[in-house]
C-alpha cells in the first residue's frame, strides 16, 4: 500500500539529477533527500561564475519549492553519519533515523589535500563549494599574490578566478612536467603555458611543495629544490577524493584508492544501495565530470523502475571554459604512431597548436588536442563519436576550420540522427531536429524548454544553434530574428518599413505591420526606431518606453530612481559640483562617481524627479540619458592642455563629440572615449567608438565593448583630421542604428556582420554602398533636432503629472521605498 522509500544521500548535482530522472520515470516512490551543505543543489560546474556576479540563487538547479511540489522531503545541513544495512536504516547528524527500501549514495567527492607540513594554516583553501568561494573572496580582498597548487583543468580555472579577483601576481604550481597532464601532450602544454603567461599567470612545472611556511597564516611556499615563493594565499586543486567514508563504514566494497565500487546498474555490493556521481567507482575509474554523473543518475533511476539501461564507461573529452585560451582534448588524445597517424599544426606566433590522431587507413578520427583555437571542437568530437568517415585530406579538419562557417553548418547536418549532441541531457540530433520539424521550435530557448539540450554544461549550445538553423533551412524556412510574436520582422526590416510609411506612433506601426496588442519586447523596439527616425520627445509616448525611459531615470531596487546629469567629457566646474552636492543633500540621495566620469545620484522618489531636474536644469545641466539606449558618455583623458605627454586636446574633442551625439537613440547604449596619446588613459579601445591622438591626427577605433564579454575596438581609420573623423563617425553610428538587431551592442553587431571589419571599413571609409552621404544627412537631422527631454518634461504640466506614485494621492511617497544607512549615506534596503 505505502510507497517504497528511497533515501538519497547528497544533494549535489548528481543527487538532484537523480530525483529529476526518477520523477520523470515514475511517481511510485517516496523520496527523501539528505544534504550536508546548507543550500539545495546548485550548479558546481559554473561555480566560478559566483565571482562574476552570479548569486547562489542564480546557480541553484531548482527552486526550493520544486522539492515540496514534487513530494520530496529535503533535509539540508544534515549529513548522514551511519548506515545500518541489516535494519535498512540511516542515521543523521541531527539525530534523524529513517528506514529505507533503497538507498542512493550521491556523496560526490572532496578536494584532495596532500599531507604537507603547514597545510592547516590560514590562507589555504580548496575550491569546491560556494562556502569555499566566499572564504577565498574574503581573503583575496587583502592579498596581493596567490598560488594554485595543481595545473589541471580545475587548477587553471581557479587561477583565472584569482586573477579576476584582482590578485595580479598569481602562480600555478604543477608537480608534473606539463600542464593539464591528463588532457594534453607536452607540445600542447608548452603552447598553453605561453598563452597563459601572456594572461599574467606565472607557471611553475616540475615543482613539488615541501612545506607551507608562515606563523599562523601562510607567507610562502617551500619547494623540494629548496626554493621559496612568497604568497599571501594558496588554493589547493590537486585532484579529487571520492567521498566513500560512509560506504566504507557500512562495509560496502570500495576501491583501493577510494570510490564506491558499482556495477553497470550502479548497484554497490549491497543490491539495495546504489552509488552515483563522483563517489562511484566503475571498472576502476572515477568519472570527475558532470555528463557521466548525469548518465549514472539516469541508469540508477532506470534500474529502480525496472527499465533496461546500463552504464558502460564514458567519453571524457573536455573543453576548458573561462580561462581566455581555448583548450580542448577529445577522444584518444595520446595515442601515437605507429598505432595511428598523427597530424600536427603549430603556429607559435598566434599560439595555436592542434593535433589529430587518425586511423592508419585514414578513414576515422580517433582523437586530438586543440590549443588556442578550439572552434572545431564540437564537430571533431562528433566525428569521433559517430565514426564519420573522414574527407580525403583530413588535415582540412584542423586547417580549414577558419572562416569555413558554411562547411561547419553542412557538417552538422551530415551527422547521423542518433548522434549525441547534448551529452549532459542525452539529447540526440534526431530529437533536436524533431523539435524543429514537428514542434515548431525556431530558437535555442525553445529547444532548451522542450528537449533540455544545452541546459547542462552548455558546451553544446553552438552545435544546437547550427542544427536549428540547418534544419529550418532544409525545410525552406527563412531564418531571421523576428522581434516578437507581434511583429514578423527583424528590427532592420521594421526600421525601413516605419521610415517608408512615415509612421509616427506605436499604434499606427502595430496596425500596419503587426498583430495583437504588443508587448514589453516590441514596444521599446518600436519606441527606439521612432526616436531614431523622428527624434520626437519620448515621454509623449511614455507607455511604450522601457522601464527606465518611461520616467527618464534608472529604476533601482525598492522602486526609487537614480539621476545622472550629463557631464560632457567628464569636465565640470566647481559651481556645478556644488549644485549636485546641494541637490543630493536636499533630496537625501546617495552619490557615486560612475565609470563614465560623471556623478550618479541614487534613491530619488518618483515625485521628486521633476523637482530635482528643475534645480539641475536651472544650474545649466541637461539629461545624461543614463536611462536610455542612447549615447551615454564620451570619456576623456586630460590631454595636451595639462598632460606632458598629450599630443592633442582630447577633452575638447570629447566634449564636441558628446554634444554632437547626445540624446540619439540606438539599438543599445553607446559609449565613446578620447585619449590624448597612445598611453590611452581614457580606455577608448574598450568603447563603441574610441579616438586616440597620433602625431599626425587621430585614429578611430570602433566596436569595442566592456561588460560581460569584453572585446577590443578595431581600427577603422588612421591619422585622420577631426572633420573626417566626425564624418566617419556619423556614417558608422547611423549604419549601426539602422541595421542592428534590438539590444545588440556594436561589438556583437560587428561579430555577426557578414564580412566583418573589412566589410564595415569598405562601407564607412570607401563608401562601397554609396550610402555615405545619406547616412551623414540622417545623422545631421538627428543632431539638429536634439532637445533635453527633462526640460520638456518639467515644463509640461500633463507630463509632470505622471511623476507621482499614487495618482489619487500625488503628494504621498511610496512607503515601500526604504533605505538603510551605509558609510554616512543611504542604500536601498535588500530585497
Amino acid at each position, binding site marked *: 500500500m505505502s510507497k517504497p522509500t528511497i533515501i538519497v544521500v547528497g544533494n549535489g548535482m548528481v543527487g538532484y539529477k537523480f530525483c529529476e530522472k526518477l520523477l520523470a520515470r515514475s511517481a511510485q516512490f517516496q523520496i527523501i533527500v539528505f544534504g550536508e551543505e546548507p543550500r539545495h543543489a546548485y550548479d558546481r560546474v559554473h561555480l566560478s561564475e559566483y565571482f562574476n556576479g552570479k548569486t547562489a540563487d542564480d546557480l541553484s538547479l531548482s*527552486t526550493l*519549492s520544486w522539492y515540496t511540489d514534487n513530494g520530496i522531503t529535503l533535509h539540508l545541513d544534515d549529513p548522514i553519519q551511519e548506515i545500518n544495512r541489516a535494519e535498512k536504516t540511516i542515521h543523521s547528524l541531527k539525530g534523524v533515523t529513517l528506514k529505507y527500501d533503497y538507498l542512493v549514495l550521491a556523496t560526490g567527492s572532496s578536494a584532495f589535500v596532500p599531507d604537507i607540513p603547514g597545510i592547516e594554516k590560514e590562507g589555504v583553501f580548496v575550491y569546491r563549494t560556494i562556502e569555499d568561494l566566499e572564504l577565498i573572496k574574503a581573503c583575496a580582498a587583502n592579498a596581493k599574490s596567490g598560488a594554485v597548487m595543481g595545473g589541471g583543468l580545475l587548477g587553471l580555472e581557479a587561477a583565472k578566478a584569482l586573477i579576476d579577483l584582482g590578485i595580479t601576481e598569481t602562480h600555478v604550481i604543477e608537480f608534473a612536467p606539463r600542464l593539464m597532464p591528463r588532457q594534453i601532450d607536452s607540445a600542447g602544454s608548452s603552447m598553453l603555458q605561453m598563452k597563459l603567461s601572456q594572461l599574467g599567470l606565472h607557471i611553475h612545472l616540475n615543482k613539488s611543495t615541501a612545506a607551507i611556511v608562515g606563523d599562523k597564516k601562510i607567507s610562502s611556499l617551500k619547494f623540494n629544490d629548496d626554493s621559496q615563493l612568497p604568497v599571501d594565499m594558496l588554493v589547493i586543486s590537486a585532484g579529487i577524493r571520492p567521498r566513500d567514508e560512509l560506504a566504507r563504514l557500512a562495509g560496502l566494497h570500495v576501491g583501493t584508492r577510494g570510490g564506491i565500487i558499482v556495477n553497470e546498474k550502479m548497484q554497490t555490493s549491497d543490491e539495495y544501495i546504489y552509488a552515483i556521481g563522483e563517489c562511484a567507482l566503475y571498472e576502476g575509474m572515477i568519472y570527475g565530470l558532470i555528463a557521466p554523473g548525469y548518465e549514472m543518475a539516469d541508469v540508477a533511476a532506470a534500474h529502480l523502475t525496472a527499465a533496461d539501461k546500463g552504464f558502460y564507461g564514458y567519453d571524457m573529452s573536455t573543453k576548458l571554459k573561462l580561462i581566455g585560451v581555448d583548450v580542448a582534448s577529445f577522444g584518444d588524445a595520446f595515442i601515437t604512431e605507429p598505432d595511428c597517424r598523427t597530424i600536427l599544426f603549430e603556429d607559435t606566433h598566434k599560439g595555436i597548436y592542434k593535433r589529430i590522431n587518425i586511423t592508419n587507413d585514414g578513414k576515422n578520427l580517433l582523437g586530438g588536442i586543440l590549443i588556442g583555437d578550439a572552434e572545431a571542437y564540437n564537430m571533431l568530437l562528433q566525428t569521433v563519436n559517430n565514426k564519420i568517415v573522414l574527407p580525403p585530406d583530413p588535415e582540412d579538419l584542423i586547417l580549414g576550420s577558419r572562416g569555413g562557417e558554411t562547411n561547419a553548418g553542412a557538417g552538422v547536418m551530415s551527422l547521423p540522427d542518433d548522434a549525441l549532441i547534448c551529452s549532459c541531457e542525452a539529447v540526440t540530433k534526431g530529437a533536436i531536429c524533431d523539435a524543429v520539424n514537428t514542434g515548431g521550435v525556431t530558437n535555442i530557448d525553445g529547444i532548451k524548454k522542450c528537449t533540455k539540450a544545452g541546459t547542462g554544461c552548455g558546451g553544446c549550445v553552438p552545435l544546437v544553434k547550427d542544427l536549428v538553423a540547418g534544419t529550418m533551412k532544409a525545410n525552406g524556412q527563412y531564418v531571421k530574428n523576428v522581434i516578437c*510574436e*507581434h511583429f514578423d520582422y527583424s528590427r532592420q526590416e521594421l526600421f525601413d518599413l516605419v521610415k517608408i510609411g512615415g509612421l509616427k506612433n506605436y*499604434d499606427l506601426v502595430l496596425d500596419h505591420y503587426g498583430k*495583437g*496588442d*504588443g*508587448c*514589453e519586447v*516590441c*514596444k*521599446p523596439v518600436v519606441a527606439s526606431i521612432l526616436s531614431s527616425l523622428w527624434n520626437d520627445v519620448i515621454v509623449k509616448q*511614455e*507607455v*511604450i518606453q*522601457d*522601464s527606465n525611459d*518611461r*520616467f527618464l531615470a534608472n*529604476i533601482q*531596487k*525598492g*522602486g526609487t530612481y537614480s539621476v545622472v546629469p550629463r557631464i560632457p567629457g567628464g569636465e565640470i566646474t566647481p559651481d556645478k559640483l556644488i549644485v549636485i552636492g546641494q541637490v543630493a543633500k536636499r533630496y537625501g540621495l546617495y552619490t557615486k562617481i560612475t565609470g563614465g566620469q560623471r556623478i550618479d545620484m541614487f534613491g530619488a522618489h518618483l515625485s521628486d524627479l521633476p523637482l530635482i531636474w528643475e534645480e539641475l536644469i536651472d544650474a545649466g545641466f541637461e539629461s545624461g540619458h543614463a536611462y536610455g539606449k542612447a549615447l551615454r558618455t564620451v570619456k576623456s583623458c586630460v590631454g595636451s592642455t595639462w598632460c606632458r605627454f598629450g599630443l592633442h586636446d582630447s577633452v575638447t574633442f570629447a566634449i564636441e563629440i558628446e554634444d554632437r551625439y547626445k540624446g540619439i537613440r540606438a539599438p543599445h547604449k553607446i559609449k565613446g572615449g578620447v585619449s590624448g596619446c597612445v598611453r590611452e588613459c581614457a580606455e577608448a579601445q574598450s568603447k563603441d567608438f574610441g579616438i586616440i591622438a597620433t602625431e599626425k591626427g587621430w585614429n578611430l577605433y570602433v566596436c569595442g565593448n566592456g561588460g560581460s564579454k569584453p572585446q577590443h575596438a578595431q581600427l577603422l581609420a588612421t591619422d585622420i583630421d577631426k572633420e573626417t573623423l566626425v564624418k566617419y563617425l556619423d556614417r558608422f553610428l547611423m549604419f549601426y542604428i539602422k541595421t542592428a538587431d534590438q539590444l545588440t551592442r556594436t561589438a556583437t553587431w560587428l561579430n555577426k556582420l557578414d564580412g566583418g571589419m573589412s566589410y564595415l571599413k569598405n562601407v564607412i571609409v570607401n563608401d562601397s554602398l554609396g550610402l555615405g552621404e545619406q547616412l551623414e544627412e540622417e545623422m545631421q537631422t538627428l543632431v539638429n533636432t536634439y532637445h533635453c527631454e527633462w526640460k520638456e518634461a518639467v515644463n509640461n504640466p500633463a507630463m509632470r503629472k*505622471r511623476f507621482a*506614485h*499614487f*495618482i*489619487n*494621492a500625488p503628494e*504621498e511617497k*511610496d512607503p*515601500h*521605498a526604504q533605505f538603510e544607512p551605509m558609510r554616512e549615506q543611504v542604500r536601498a534596503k535588500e*530585497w
Partner: protein
Amino acid sequence: MRNPAAGKAHTQTNYNMETVIATRWIMACYVDDVPENGGSCIKHGDEQIAIFNFTRRNEWYATQNLCPHKQQMAISRGMIGSTGENCEPKVACPFHKKTFSLLSGECIGDEDLSIKTYPVKITDGKVFIGIA
C-alpha cells in the same frame, strides 16, 4: 480563492455587474488620470492597486501593485500587451519583466507566482474598483 471571472474587465457596455458579483466599489481616480495604454497606481488604505487603461482594447484592468517576484511596488509602471492566439492581456513588471495575465493574475512562465486582480467599471469619467 481567486475567481478568474472576477478579474474580467468591465467597460461601459458591461451592465448589471453588481448583481453578478457582490462587490464593494470604490472610486479610484478619473479616467484621464491613467495614461492611455498604460497604468497608474492608487492608494486604498494600506493597499496599493495598479490600474490599467487598455485603450487599444477599450478595456480597463486592476491588479495588486506589488510584484511577487522581488516584492517591488512596480506593476503599475510596467508595459501592457497581449500574448498568444487568444490575445490574453498581460502586464510586464519593469524590474525583471515577469509578465502576468491581467485576466487571471497568473505569471506567464512561472506557475509559482501570481497577483491579485480586481474588477473595474467606468461611470461618468470616474474609475471604480471592486474590492471583494
